[in-house]
């Protein structure tokens, strides 16, 4: 058991309270995606769980036990901007394992595997401080994966990764992480990432938990506008109150299925995407976009 | 610039003992008041002072090493030498006086005893004091390195005296320094031998023939001043009441 719990945790930065969580639990062996606007306190949350910061009040538990600064580390953290020690990518991947007293032969294997999974095998002998941003981020991710910790904390792990690698990782990561049986806390701004990797979703706004629950429930009924927005819904003003329209559910003319609601669209721009056209415009002041299939008017 | 310097200043290479006592400062002030000439006293061991003269790096010298002075005069580097003043060296050591030199009146004999027991602290800085010490060893027929636990400080008189004090050792010190520092050390004067331990200070002019750079005019005036009755009086009086003893005995009063 290695579920992560926050109890009455608050944290200040430069005098401002940037995190204030009454109670939050990340279930064991589950992948939870944390969504939230910039400055919501997501990274701060990860840093607290990783033990890099001490909460101003309250306490954090892993597997029921309070977080301890001494004793063997139980978490691995990949922050959004990667930092490396001097030396090669290999040394950077190896260091954490060495620090956790993993025997050398096993270290080698783990480094190789992690490198393969993240597609950085051919970077292993390059100086880690001379990588492109995406390469760096992949090394950063690999370094965390290689540690195979109970709890793995990922901060926008794929933000700078190219589409091809990204798709591959999105396919493999869930398998890998489940196999490792780790409790995963993933901070992301990307809908797809959140959906593919987040069995549960936590929405953080202004340092407070705005919504929390299984992915499905949140997507069925976003509790509020912010959440809906962060999940990619489009908010429209209907006769009877606001309606959250799921992405892609907006269609022109007689759409296929779904409860029909009519709106009038002020078209502001039409982008020709070849086989499709991307129409952007505003409905009741809110900007929306929808794609028209080829032969539509 | 240098042309004006010629008339307004000169460099005096002087032995430390005369300088540290503060006597020179007094004389130099009076000289400036009198003539407006600025004297720059460079305090070094007598050896270095004479060396500076040989290089023509100074205009005049104040040293207390007659034998060495004679050599340089012979070599023509120094001219117009004048005996300025004298005092004497004192053989000081621990009150206990293990070597038992106090009972002596003859410096040579005393040194012979010190040589057998030690410890003895030497200047070892090529000063007049050192060369006198070496002379005494020689007269005593004692090879220097056979002297029991003899150390060299390679420093000025005061530093050497401090070392001797710390090691409770014997050392040879000039009267001026001794009177100045005796209150700071636990050593006692053990032997005074007016004859053998006389300490003569002389002033010389650097030979302008060999060293054209020499500022003859101001230098000469300074030498003349030093042997003038006024200066000699100052020398006689210097430090009397402050230190309760005469530091230097003027030698040019008679002339």
């Amino acid at each position, binding site marked *: 058991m290695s579920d992560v719990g926050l109890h009455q945790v608050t944290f200040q930065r430069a005098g401002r309270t940037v995190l204030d969580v009454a109670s939050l639990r990340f279930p064991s062996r589950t992948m939870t995606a944390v969504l939230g606007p910039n400055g919501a306190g997501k990274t701060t949350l990860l840093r607290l769980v990783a033990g890099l910061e001490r909460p101003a009040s309250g306490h954090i538990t892993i597997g029921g036990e309070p977080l301890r600064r001494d004793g063997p580390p139980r978490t691995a953290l990949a922050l959004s901007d990667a930092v490396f020690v001097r030396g090669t990518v290999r040394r950077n991947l190896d260091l954490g394992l060495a620090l956790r007293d993993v025997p050398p032969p096993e270290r080698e294997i783990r480094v190789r595997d992690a490198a393969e999974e993240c597609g950085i095998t051919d970077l292993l002998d390059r100086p880690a401080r001379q990588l492109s941003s995406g390469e760096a981020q992949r090394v950063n991710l690999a370094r965390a994966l290689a540690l195979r910790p109970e709890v793995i904390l990922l901060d926008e792990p794929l933000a700078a990764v190219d589409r091809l690698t990204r798709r591959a990782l999105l396919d493999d990561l869930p398998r890998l992480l489940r196999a490792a049986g780790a409790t995963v806390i993933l901070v992301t701004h990307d809908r797809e990432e959140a959906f593919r990797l987040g069995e549960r979703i936590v929405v953080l706004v202004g340092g407070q938990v705005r919504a929390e629950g299984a992915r499905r429930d949140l997507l069925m009924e976003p509790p509020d506008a912010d959440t809906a927005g962060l999940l990619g819904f489009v908010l429209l003003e209907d006769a009877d109150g606001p309606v959250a329209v799921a992405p892609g559910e907006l269609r022109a003319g007689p759409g296929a299925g779904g409860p029909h609601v009519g709106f009038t669209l002020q078209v502001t721009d039409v982008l020709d995407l070849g086989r499709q056209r991307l129409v952007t415009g505003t409905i009741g002041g809110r900007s929306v976009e929808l794609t028209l299939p080829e032969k539509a008017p | 610039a240098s042309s004006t310097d010629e008339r307004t200043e000169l460099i005096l290479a002087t032995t430390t003992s005369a300088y540290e006592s503060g006597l020179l400062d007094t004389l130099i002030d009076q000289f400036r008041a009198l003539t407006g000439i600025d004297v720059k006293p460079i305090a070094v061991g007598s050896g*270095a002072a004479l060396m500076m003269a040989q290089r023509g790096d100074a205009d005049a010298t104040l040293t207390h090493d007659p034998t060495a002075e004679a050599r340089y005069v012979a070599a023509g580097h120094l001219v117009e030498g004048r005996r300025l003043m004298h005092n004497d060296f004192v053989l000081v050591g621990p009150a206990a006086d293990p070597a038992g030199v106090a009972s002596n009146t003859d410096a040579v004999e005393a040194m012979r005893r010190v040589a057998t027991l030690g410890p003895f602290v030497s200047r070892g800085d090529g000063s007049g004091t050192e060369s006198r010490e070496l002379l005494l060893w020689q007269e005593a027929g004692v090879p220097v390195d056979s002297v029991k636990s003899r150390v*060299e400080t390679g420093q000025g008189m005061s530093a050497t005296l401090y070392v001797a004090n710390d090691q409770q050792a014997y050392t040879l010190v000039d009267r001026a320094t001794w009177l100045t520092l005796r209150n700071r050390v636990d050593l006692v004067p053990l032997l005074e031998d007016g004859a053998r331990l006389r300490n003569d200070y002389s002033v010389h002019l650097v030979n302008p023939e060999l060293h054209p750079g020499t500022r003859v005019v101001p230098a000469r005036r300074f030498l003349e001043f030093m042997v003038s009755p006024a200066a000699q009086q100052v020398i006689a009086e210097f430090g009397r009441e402050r230190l309760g003893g005469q530091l230097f005995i003027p030698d040019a009063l008679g002339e």
Partner: protein
Amino acid sequence: MHWVNDLTTALGEAWHLLLSGDAEVWAIILRTLAISLCATALAMVVGVPLGYGLARGRFPGRTLVLGMVNTAMGMPPVVVGLVVWLFFTRSGPFGGSGLLYTPQAMVLAQFLIATPLVIGFSAASIQSLPPALPDLLTSLGAGPWRRLWLLSREARLGLLAAVMAGFGAVISEVGASMTVGGNLRGSTRVLTTAIVTVTGRGEMATAIAYGLILLALAFTVTLILTFVQQRRDA
């Protein structure tokens, strides 16, 4: 022109002194190295951890301590020497120890001179590391001691510079060594004090020769530094 002789003969003199195997010269060189290296080593052992603490610690009065260290960095060797002298002279509190005018006393004085330098500059070099590095090491699982070790490795250039500064200061320092050591021939005479002595004797060439030897020592140590610099990105 004397100075030509001086400068030219100095080099020859230096070689002569070294090759002649003149026991005293070699003794002085080795003594100088022994004393200064010993003092620097001690200063390093004490200074680097303190510097690390100053750089990373966030304790009250930190600025004050920093200020004091900075001041101590500018502490005149002459004064240090004088104070040590006063403590160890016969009439002083530790007069009985008989340490004055011994190499040990010189090591102590040089240690007092070098330590603030080592503290100050190692603090600076630790602070100049990527700010996120310590957190990274923590999250990788490094305890405080391994973190100190790893950060020192990362900052090794700066730390070496710090140690160099300390070594350079004490090996080239004369005020304290003279007062505390007494420049005793055969026991506490080091290169700098020897230079003063031979200068006092008017033996300029020899003085410069000693000076050149001193520089040579400094340079060899520098070569080590430069060598490490080569392996910067290793």
